C-alpha cells in the first residue's frame, strides 16, 4: 500500500457578488491557498441548500465552507441572514450526526477582501486536514 500525503477535499460555495469576487481578488493578488479548495459559484449564499452540503459529505468531501457578503451588505439585502440562520440549524444537526463542527463553516468575505479569502481558506484547510478524512457520511456507492 502506497502512503500519500493526506489531501482534504474542500467544497466552497461563494456568492457571486462578494465572496466569489473576493476569491478572484485573491487570485489577482496571487495570494496562494491550497488547491484542495474547489469553488462553486452561487448567486447568493442563501442559494445554498443544506442538501448540497450533505451531498458533498456523502460524496466524500472533508469540509464545506459557505462564503457570503458581510451581514448588512447582501446584494439581495437579506440573503446572508437566511444563510446564517439556516446553517446554524444545519450545523447543529451535523453535530448531532457526529460530523465535527470544524468541518463546516460560514464566513463573510467581501469583494475587497482577497487577503481574507486566502487566509480563511488556508485556515480552513489546515483545520480540516488536522481532522483527517471524513468518513461519517461517505457513501462509497456514490463513488464511481
Amino acid at each position: 500500500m502506497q502512503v500519500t500525503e493526506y489531501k482534504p477535499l474542500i467544497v466552497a460555495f461563494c456568492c457571486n457578488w462578494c465572496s466569489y469576487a473576493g476569491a478572484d481578488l485573491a487570485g489577482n493578488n496571487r495570494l496562494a491557498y491550497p488547491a484542495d479548495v474547489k469553488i462553486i459559484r452561487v448567486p447568493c449564499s442563501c442559494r445554498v441548500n443544506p442538501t448540497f452540503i450533505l451531498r458533498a459529505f456523502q460524496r466524500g468531501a472533508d469540509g464545506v465552507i459557505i462564503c457570503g457578503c458581510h451581514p448588512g451588505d447582501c446584494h439581495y439585502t437579506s440573503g446572508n441572514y437566511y444563510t446564517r440562520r439556516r446553517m446554524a440549524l444545519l450545523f447543529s444537526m451535523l453535530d448531532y450526526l457526529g460530523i465535527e463542527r470544524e468541518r463546516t463553516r460560514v464566513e463573510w468575505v467581501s469583494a475587497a477582501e482577497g487577503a481574507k479569502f486566502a487566509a480563511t481558506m488556508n485556515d480552513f484547510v489546515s483545520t480540516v486536514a488536522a481532522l483527517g478524512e471524513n468518513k461519517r457520511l461517505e457513501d462509497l456507492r456514490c463513488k464511481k
Partner: protein
Amino acid sequence: MQRIGVFVCHCGTNIAGTVDVKAVAEALQYEPGVVISKEYQYMCSQAGQDLIKEAIKENNLTGIVVCSCSPRMHEATFRKTAAAAGLNPYMVEIANIREQCSWVHKDIPTGTEKAIILGKAAVAKVNLNAPLTPGESPVTKRALVIGGGIAGIQTALDIADAGFPVDIVETKPTIGGKMAQLDKTFPTLDCAACILTPKMVDVAQNDKVRIFSYSEVTDVSGFVGNFEVTIKRRARYVKEDICTGCGLCTEKCPQKKVPNEFNLGMDNRRAIYIPFAQAVPKVATIDPDYCTMLKSGKCGVCSKVCTVGAIDYQAKDEYLTEKYGAIVVATGFNPISMEKFDEFAYSQSKDVITSLELERLMNAAGPTGGTLLRPSDGEHPHTIVFVQCVGSRCASCAEKGKEYCSKICCMYTAKHAMLIRDKYPDTDVYVFYIDVRTPGKNFDEFYRRAVEEYGVHYIKGMVGKVSPEGNKLKVRASDLIDGKQLHIDADLVVLAAAIEPDKSARPLATMLTASMDTNDFFTEAHPKLRPVESPTAGVFLSGACQGPKDIPETVSQAGAAASKVIGLLCKDKLTGNPCVAHSDEWMCNGCSTCEKVCPYGAITYQDKEFRMPDRTVKVRRVASVNEAVCQGCGACTVACMSGAMNLKGFTNQQIMAEVDAICK
C-alpha cells in the same frame, strides 16, 4: 443529450504557466456529452472567438464550456460569441482556471489537476443547462414622485424636462416641504423662499406635471415599468379647480385658535387656511378637526364670503388609480421629538426652541414678522445658547435619540449664529459643540467666519441642564478646553434636534417592498455605485428619505434620481434577468414560505385548476413568480419545503452535478 464543446484558454502564460492546458483539454474530451475539446492562446481574442463560433457550427454544439479567466471577466464576451453562432447564450459555462486556479497555485501538477476538476464541474453543469430567454415587459411612460419638498420638486421638473409626464403626491395642502419653512440657506445666505418658490411655480405651470396635494399613496402593486398606484385625495372641502386663492375665507373664518403647523405651532391660523402666501396649489383647505360647520353644521361663513362658490362641505375623500413606469420616493425628514431630552427643558419653557422653530422666528413671514423675539414674553433675547447634537450620535443602548450624525446641524447653527450676530450685534451667542463637522464646499470657511468675523462663542463641551428660573434660562455646561463648568443665564436656548425620516416612510416602504435600514431611512441598491436606486427595481430615492442631507446634496440626488427614471422611461421594453426562480406548480403546496423570504415581493399566489390522472379537476393555491421582479437570489428555493421552487441557471440539479463532479 447535449453536444458540448470545451475550450481551454492559455491566457498567454497566465494560465499555461501553472496549468498544462493540453492535458486539461484532453482530460475533458472524455467527459459525458463532450464532442470536441480544444485549447488556444487567447480565447477572448477575435481569433479565439472565431474558433469557438466555427466549432459550434461545425459540430452542432448545444453547449460550451470555456476554461479561462473568471466569469466576472469574460462570461458576457463568450455568451455573445455563442449567440453570434446561433447558440442560446445561457448554454455557456465558464470554468475559472485563472483567478481561482493558476494564479493561486504554484506547481503544474496541482494546477492541472484542479483545472481538470473545475472543467469537469462546468461540463457536468452545462449538461443540465437549458436555453433561457429573458422576459420582456412594457414600460408605462409616466413617473410618480412621492413627496413634494425640494427633492420631489427637482426630480419632477427634471423628468418633465425630458418630456415624460410626472405626478407629485404630497400629503400637505401645499408642496414646498421643509425648505419652504427655512429663512436663509447656508453657506450663501440666500433666502430660501427666493430660490424655492420660483421652482414651485415652474412645477405648477409645467403641463407635464400634475400635483396631487393633500393626498397620499395608499396602495402599490405591479413591478418596474408597470406599477399601479392608488392615491387617496383627501377631502379639502374646497374645490381646487374653482378656488382662486384670494384668501377672503381665511380672514373671515371665526375659528381663530388653530395651531399653525407651518409656524410649528408658535402662532394660530384659521380652520380654513392657506399654509403660506406662496403655496402651490394656492387654494384654501378646511381643517375638519376645527371647522365648526363640519363638526356641528353651524357656521358656513367661508361659503358665504366665497365669491366663486368653491366651498363644498359635502366633499368626500376620493381614490384614483394610476399606472406608472417608475416611482421616486422623496418623503423627506422631520426633527425628532424633544420629549426624551427634557434636561434641556423644552417642554418646561417656551424659550427653549428647536432650530426649525428659530427659522420661523427669523423669517419675515413667520410669527414675529422676522424680528427675533422670545416666544414667552416677546422680548428681545440678549444671550442665546445653541446646543448641538441633541438626539444625534446617541448610543443605541441609551434608548433615546439616533445613532447617526444628522449632518446639517453644524452648518445651520453657524448660519443662525451668524445671522443673529449680524442683525443684533448686542446679542451674545454661544454654541456648545462636540465636533464641528463642515465637509462641503465653502462650509468650513463659513463656520470660521461665524467665529472670526461675527464673534460667535464656540465652546467645545455640552450643555448638561437648562433650568428655567424667573425669566432666565440657567444653562449649566462644560467647557472642555478651558476645563471648567460654565453657568450662563440665557434668554433663549436653541436645540439642534436630530432629524429622522418622515413617519410616512415606513408604511410606504412596505407597500413598495423597498428596504429600509433600522433608522427607517431607505436603503440604496449600492452605497457607492447605485446611491439613488432602491434595491427594488423601478423605485428610486431622492433627498433625505435616504439619509440626512442638505439642500445642495438633495438637489443633486434629485437630479440623479430623475436621470435614472428618464433612462428607464426611455425604454419601450425591459429585458429581465432570465436566471429567475420558477415554481413547479404540480409540486407546490401553497404554503407561503417562499413569499415570506422573498425580499422583492416577487411571489404571489393564485388558485389554479389541475387536471388529475383520474380526470377530476382539483383547484389548488400555488406560488407564481413574477419574472420581472425576481432578482434571482434563490432564497425561496431553499425555503421551499416541497422542492417546487427552483432557480433557472442555478438549479438544484445543476449545483448537485457540480458538487458530484468536484467530489468524484
